């Protein structure tokens, strides 16, 4: 069953929290992963892989650089979820 964007956001926030210790509430749609959340490229990769497992999507390495904001990741997952 397809998840809503809100559900994806919540799931993603949990993953970010686990990787970085950042409060889940901080993870909002308009936040930039690097600028606002201070997530570096390697943490981002870990988040991506955990998101793949959680949401059953494949996020190619080349795609990761396009996911600059939380909303980009949420919509990519929403559009590609299995």
């Amino acid at each position, binding site marked *: 069953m397809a998840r809503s964007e809100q559900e994806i956001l919540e799931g993603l926030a949990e993953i970010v929290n686990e990787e970085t210790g950042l409060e889940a509430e901080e993870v909002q749609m308009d936040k930039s992963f690097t600028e606002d959340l201070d997530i570096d*490229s*390697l943490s981002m*990769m870990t988040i991506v892989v955990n998101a793949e497992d959680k949401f059953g999507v494949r996020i190619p390495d080349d795609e990761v650089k396009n996911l600059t904001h939380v909303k980009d990741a949420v919509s990519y997952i929403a559009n590609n979820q299995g």
Partner: protein
Amino acid sequence: MSTSPTLSAPTTLRHARILGLGGYRPERVVTNEEVLQFIDSSDEWIRQRSGIVTRRIAREDESVVDMAEAASLQALERAGLEPGQVDAILMATVTHPLQTPAAAPILADRLGIEDPAAMDLSAACAGYCYAISLANDMVRAGSADTVLVVGVEKLSDFTDKHDRGSAFIFGDGAGAAVVGVSDRPGIGPTVWGSLGERADAITQRESWTDLRPDMEAAGREAGIAWPAFVMQGQTVFRWAVFSMAPVALQAVEAAGITPSDLGAFVPHQANMRITDAMVKALELPAHVPVARDIAETGNTSAASIPLAMSRMLDEGEAQHGALALQIGFGAGLVYAAQVVEMP
């Protein structure tokens, strides 16, 4: 640990033999007359001293991998095997023009062989026999069932056309052998050795490091970069952590032990973040010490695991006789993991 666990290992040896041979000679035939454009000699002189009448030279755009591919396909066909049945590739060459990645994994990809053990071997003109010896041991002991051995050189890339002593000697070509399980011994014991004190008898004229000061400066002006290592950090990180953790666990399982039997985890010291993430992905028991030599040594590639293990033993962080899980991974991309008893 009160009782030390025993590592699994095959107890019986199999036989191995060469199942098929293949070869590839480049199309272009180079006569002694052509060689003589650049050296002061004669056809007769060359024939008298070398017996060489013609040699084959690869096209400029033809690589060692291209030649190896053609030879391998023929060897596999003659062995009656599909590329997919190969589980290890040993490529003996000294003219693959990159120090890394090796040519063998690139050949594997060309042939559509998925995830074989794949490495290059540097033993010059003895390389093929060295590789056959290793392939024989691998098949006999059970670390591989079918090994593709390739000897390939594009010597023309490293030949000085003006050197009277060598210009007429070298040619380009590839030969391949498929070594597999046999009902009888097909490869006898290898007698091998080396005489390092004569290393200068056949050598490259200059080493890369001798050339670097001049070439790097000239290259910069010409917009050509020194062939330094580069990597895609994020891609490597992802592969190293999330694909290598399962490999490490497989090695533990294959050794017939469990992670709690380990007295150390010694991953290749690639990056502390990779180590941290790998430890997490492995769900390693907290009592297993993890090598973190990278903090003071950096990433030393193939040297990193023995360096890190030595430090752990020297500093008493790991115990002599205990079991260590070690895993190496890098450009190729290639990887290998095993459990070893620490000396």
